[in-house]
């Protein structure tokens, strides 16, 4: 599969949130205002790409030579946890301003199922290192796009009069359903 196709697929036609149902916790929990959804998107992009690269090396240069491929789930979640910790320490020391903005989201990222999902799919599909990077980047861009779209919808919804039955969580899910229908229209894009 060409790299451009991977990008288009992961951002639009196979969008991780609307089509694959991964990473829904921040999608419903953190889409109240634009700043936090973009901040979360940026943090997730960074961690996903880095964790995918590291887990690629862990899988092909540690797990396979030792014949313990079945440990991949444990190895990857530890990789992600260690990586999130490192990012946190680095940002705290070197870029305190960015740390202040991203700080609260960082621990949440460890249990974002999209990241573990991306690393596992990379191995499942047998992607090369370059494809891995593109897949990870595309899926996090797709995640950020979904976050921003949902935030915009929720901000507009704040001004409208919603029937009492749908107030709160139900209307958010139903809005997500309609956005997902729009994304269905992009099915088949990118091969």
């Amino acid at each position, binding site marked *: 599969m060409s790299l451009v196709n991977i990008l288009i697929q992961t951002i639009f036609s196979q969008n991780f949130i*609307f089509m694959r*149902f991964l990473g*829904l*916790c921040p999608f419903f929990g953190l889409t109240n205002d634009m700043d936090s959804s973009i901040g979360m998107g940026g943090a997730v992009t960074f961690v996903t790409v880095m964790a995918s690269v590291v887990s690629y090396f862990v899988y092909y240069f540690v797990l396979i030579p030792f014949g313990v491929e079945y440990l991949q*789930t444990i190895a990857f979640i530890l990789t992600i946890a260690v990586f999130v910790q490192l990012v946190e320490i680095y940002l705290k020391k070197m870029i305190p301003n960015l740390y202040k903005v991203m700080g609260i989201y960082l621990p949440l990222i460890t249990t974002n199922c999209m990241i573990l999902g991306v690393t596992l799919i990379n191995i499942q599909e047998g992607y090369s290192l370059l494809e891995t990077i593109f897949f990870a980047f595309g899926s996090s861009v797709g995640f950020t796009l979904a976050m921003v779209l949902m935030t915009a919808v929720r901000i507009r919804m704040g001004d409208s009069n919603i029937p009492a039955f749908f107030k709160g969580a139900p209307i958010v899910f*139903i809005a997500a359903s309609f956005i997902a229908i729009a994304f269905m229209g992009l099915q088949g894009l990118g091969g």
Partner: protein
Amino acid sequence: MKSNFKNLLTKGLIKENPVFVLMLGLCSVLAVSVSVVNALGMTLAFTFVTILSEITISILRKWIPKSLRIPIFIVVIASFVTILQFLLQAYLPSLNKALGIFIPLIVVNCIIIGRIESFASKKPVFESILDGLGISLGYGIAIVCIAIVREILGNGTILGFPILGSSYEPALMFILPPGAFLVIGIEIGIMNHITKKASRKGVAR
């Protein structure tokens, strides 16, 4: 004491339902609820991991240092998920294939980490088992409720048996992702409506 045990078992069903009320672990719920069989399989897998990890953490709770607890929880959960993967591959390969990536993703299911952090790491073994059972029941009820609606409307069947007759044209949308969001949205709405009505009655009394 007995009512306390009963409370542990039943609180996950409605009052603290992990999916409909706390809205945790949504990824697997929405993705797997395409058919009732998958939903039941996922519930079994979830129950296995939840109860065994709660027991393990509850036994080890006195020796786990506070600052290292989250990594230890994750490693314990991940070990049981790996065991589960082996068992499924050996005995239920078709279910393993249907659930796919959502089996390894039980590791990052927020419900399990949440229960361990707030319950099993503080309470004795027996209560932890009850808590694990209760929370798994709540999870199972939620996922099966969604799956029943999706399978009937989207496929005209339940557990694979056609029930709506051959004249029914399946609404494909309910099998596809948008249907999942729609069904869970409406079911949470119904749930809120019922609990609100019940609490209003309680106030009036």
